[in-house]
């Protein structure tokens, strides 16, 4: 009974979404306040209905209702309860329902937290989000209903893909979807503003916190996916330039560009049409990512669906959304105006360069991801684009980007002096170069790329320190303490600094791992030892183990350094009989300056095994840097001026103070 109620709730939600998509939009055009007033309650009701349907699906999973086809294909009675809940989004139908839940949730959040917006603007925004919900509800109900029943229910389910039975998997998809779908808010704001013709600094200020929050989720989601790949796939890599990873990375690049261009639009009123275009592109790439991942055109653990109708539906929806919004853009953007002028050397120019570089990077990823698919679709043969392509492209594109990241925050809006900037930053540049050379010399690694990498990381830190020191200088008018002056720095500025510092930490981690990691596959008999970077690994043999829904061979490996014991690691090889799959469970000792990574390869004759023994210096800094970026975004999004009622004058004065 419960699945039928859930199914019915989805149909009701479709009705509500259609009302939401039509009435407030029409009301805004006709100036009917009563129709516009429908927007907020409709958004709330839509969310409630979808959340209810989602809860029904969770109940079916927890209650092991194998008469529901989706549950039978993705769960099993021996699956632990927390994974039964996570299994809700372990397959195609459920993850689309999760997508929808996020979309309606974001619409509800906009309805809830944007009361101060003018009624017309809010009505249009929620209508656009309603239209998106209509599209996805139709997709779900017509092609991928999670509540479909089986005529002959099996006694037990087929179990969740073992790769997905992991705590990281419980949180990775919801986080990523929050980010993907969160970009729909920026998209809706942009489309609503294009329709209403009110693209201005106020619009940018309304959009900014929403975009930043979506970006935070996207950042954390991508970082979690990368972390999951690192410890779950069993070969110790953290990024593969897999099409699915690229699908999430492209919206991230555009969203990052959008955050920066929104800053210009808000503070200076420039780049308006460019910002709107970025908002449209960011969400379009999210949709493209969904299409790539869900249509089955890619072959990887993420592609659950092989039903061509689904791919066609998403493709059609994608064409409709992108086509309609770009047409609207082409029609309305010329009326937007160009905004304030700025000089050659100014913060605007630096941010423009940032945008160009980020878009070039995104274009490069898009090319590498779509080209093989396109050729294949046209029947022109099969080929793939290797990771070296992305590595080759990203280093020269990101080097100037990082260089500008140091200069940009110190440059003034409108007009800055190049000689003065050079004078202020020459110490930072020198210090970064010297520090990079010294560190690499001490490690005995004087390669060009690794020195460049370290220098970029140190350059960001040094430029930030210069900026901070300048801000803490007494201004000569009122004599205040350093602490007081530190408190005067706006929170969004602190957020920017933390996020940029996160990039530095990330680059440092990547450089150290790329240049210093040792990966060794060795044959080990019981009692054999191998030494990697000063750590001695001793193989103590393998024993059998029984898990809730798997059998495992568990190895024991003692790690010592200089005779003292560091840790004992227990990597596992698991066999899941129901899913019929083998899984490598790596054992990792995570440290601040290094990870020790051990996983079991294959058994050989006797008691010997092939064992992967990796030492990865500073790898946790990669994810630490991502978390810092996200935290910086959090600080920026919760800046006081977004919470106060919108007053254009106050915003303008703060803009001057921050400049």
């Amino acid at each position, binding site marked *: 009974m419960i699945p039928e109620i859930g199914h019915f709730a989805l149909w009701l939600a479709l009705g509500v979404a259609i009302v939401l998509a039509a009435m407030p939009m029409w009301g805004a055009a006709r100036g009917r306040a009563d129709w516009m007033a429908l927007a907020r309650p409709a958004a709330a009701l839509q969310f409630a209905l979808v959340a209810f349907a989602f809860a029904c699906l969770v109940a079916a999973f927890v209650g092991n209702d194998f008469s529901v086809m989706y549950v039978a294909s993705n769960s099993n009675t021996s699956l632990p309860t927390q994974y039964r809940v996570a299994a809700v989004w372990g397959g195609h139908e459920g993850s689309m329902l999760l997508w929808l839940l996020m979309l309606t949730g974001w619409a509800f959040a906009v309805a809830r937290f944007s009361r101060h917006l003018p009624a017309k603007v809010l009505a249009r925004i929620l209508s656009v989000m309603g239209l998106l919900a209509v599209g996805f509800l139709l997709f779900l109900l017509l092609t991928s209903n999670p509540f479909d029943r089986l005529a002959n229910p099996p006694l037990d389910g087929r179990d969740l893909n073992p790769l997905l039975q992991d705590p990281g998997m419980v949180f990775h998809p919801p986080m990523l979807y929050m980010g993907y779908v969160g970009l729909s808010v920026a998209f809706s704001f942009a489309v609503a503003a294009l329709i209403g013709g009110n693209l201005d600094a106020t619009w940018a200020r309304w959009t900014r916190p929403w975009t930043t929050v979506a970006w935070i989720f996207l950042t954390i989601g991508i970082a979690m996916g990368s972390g999951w790949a690192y410890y779950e796939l069993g070969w110790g890599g953290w990024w593969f330039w897999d099409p699915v990873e690229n699908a999430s990375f492209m919206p991230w690049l555009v969203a990052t560009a959008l955050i920066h261009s929104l800053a210009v639009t808000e503070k200076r009123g420039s780049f308006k049409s460019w910002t709107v275009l970025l908002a449209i592109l960011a969400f379009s790439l999210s949709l493209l990512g969904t299409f790539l991942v869900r249509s089955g055109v890619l072959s990887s653990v993420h592609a659950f669906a092989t039903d061509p109708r689904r791919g066609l539906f998403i493709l059609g929806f994608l064409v409709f959304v992108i086509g309609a919004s770009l047409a609207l853009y082409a029609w309305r953007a010329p009326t937007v105006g160009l905004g304030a002028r700025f000089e050659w050397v100014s913060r605007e120019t630096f941010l423009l360069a940032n945008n160009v570089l980020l878009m070039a990077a995104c274009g490069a990823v898009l090319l590498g991801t779509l080209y093989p698919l396109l050729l294949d679709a046209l029947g*022109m043969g099969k080929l793939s684009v290797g990771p070296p392509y992305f590595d080759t492209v990203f280093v020269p594109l990101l080097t100037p980007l990082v260089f500008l990241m140091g200069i940009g925050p110190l440059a003034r809006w409108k007009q800055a002096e190049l000689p003065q900037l050079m004078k202020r930053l020459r110490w930072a540049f020198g210090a970064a170069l010297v520090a990079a050379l010294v560190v690499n010399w001490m490690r005995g690694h004087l390669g060009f790329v690794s020195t460049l990498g370290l220098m970029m990381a140190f350059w960001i830190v040094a430029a930030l320190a210069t900026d901070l020191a300048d801000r803490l200088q007494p201004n000569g008018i009122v004599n205040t303490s350093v602490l007081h002056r530190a408190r005067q720095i706006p929170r969004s500025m602190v957020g920017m600094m933390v996020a940029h510092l996160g990039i530095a930490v990330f680059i440092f981690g990547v450089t150290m791992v790329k240049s210093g990691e040792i990966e060794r596959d060795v044959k080990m008999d019981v009692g054999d030892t191998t030494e990697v970077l000063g750590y001695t690994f001793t193989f103590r043999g393998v024993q059998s183990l029984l898990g809730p829904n798997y059998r495992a061979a568990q190895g024991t490996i003692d790690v010592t350094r200089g005779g003292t014991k560091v840790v004992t690691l227990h990597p596992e090889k698991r066999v899941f009989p129901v899913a019929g799959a083998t899984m490598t469970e790596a054992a990792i000792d995570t440290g601040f300056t290094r990870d020790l990574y051990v996983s079991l390869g294959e058994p050989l004759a006797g008691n010997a095994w092939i064992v992967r023994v990796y030492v990865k210096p500073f790898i946790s800094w990669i994810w630490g840097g991502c978390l810092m970026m996200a935290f910086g975004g959090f600080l920026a999004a919760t800046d006081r001026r977004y919470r106060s009622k919108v007053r254009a004058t106050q915003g303008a004065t703060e803009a001057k103070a921050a400049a």
Partner: protein
Amino acid sequence: MKPRHKRLAIAGGIVCAFGIAVALVLNAFQSNLVFFYSPTQVAEHEAPPNRSFRLGGLVEKGTVKRDGVNVSFIVTDTSKSVPVRYEGILPDLFKEGKGVVAQGQLRDGVFVAREVLAKHDENYMPPEAAEALKRAQQGKLATPMKMESGK
């Protein structure tokens, strides 16, 4: 400079920067395309001698031999076969009689794989492997590409 000239110059600068970026990207792209060949094509000497490519097909039953970390096996498309050498740990889904895709270079008639890919599930054939079998069954040689693959 007049504002109009300045805008023109900025636009020009962006176009230049973008042009350089595009040239860079396309160059890297060209040299990192990995083409796919089936065992039949390798037997017909169509595969480039000094360039990395992908080989797909089935792992022939009874041909997997392990010697410590070195492993050798034969990849077949049921009509022709290619011996493969690999050093390291094979993925969990590597099995005799199942589909496989390897990336590496030909050396003296042996395919030396740097990477063996099997990121697919139990019942799923990697597209490249499926393609190789299809081509062999059709019995005709589909040339992989009319593009410059010998670079």
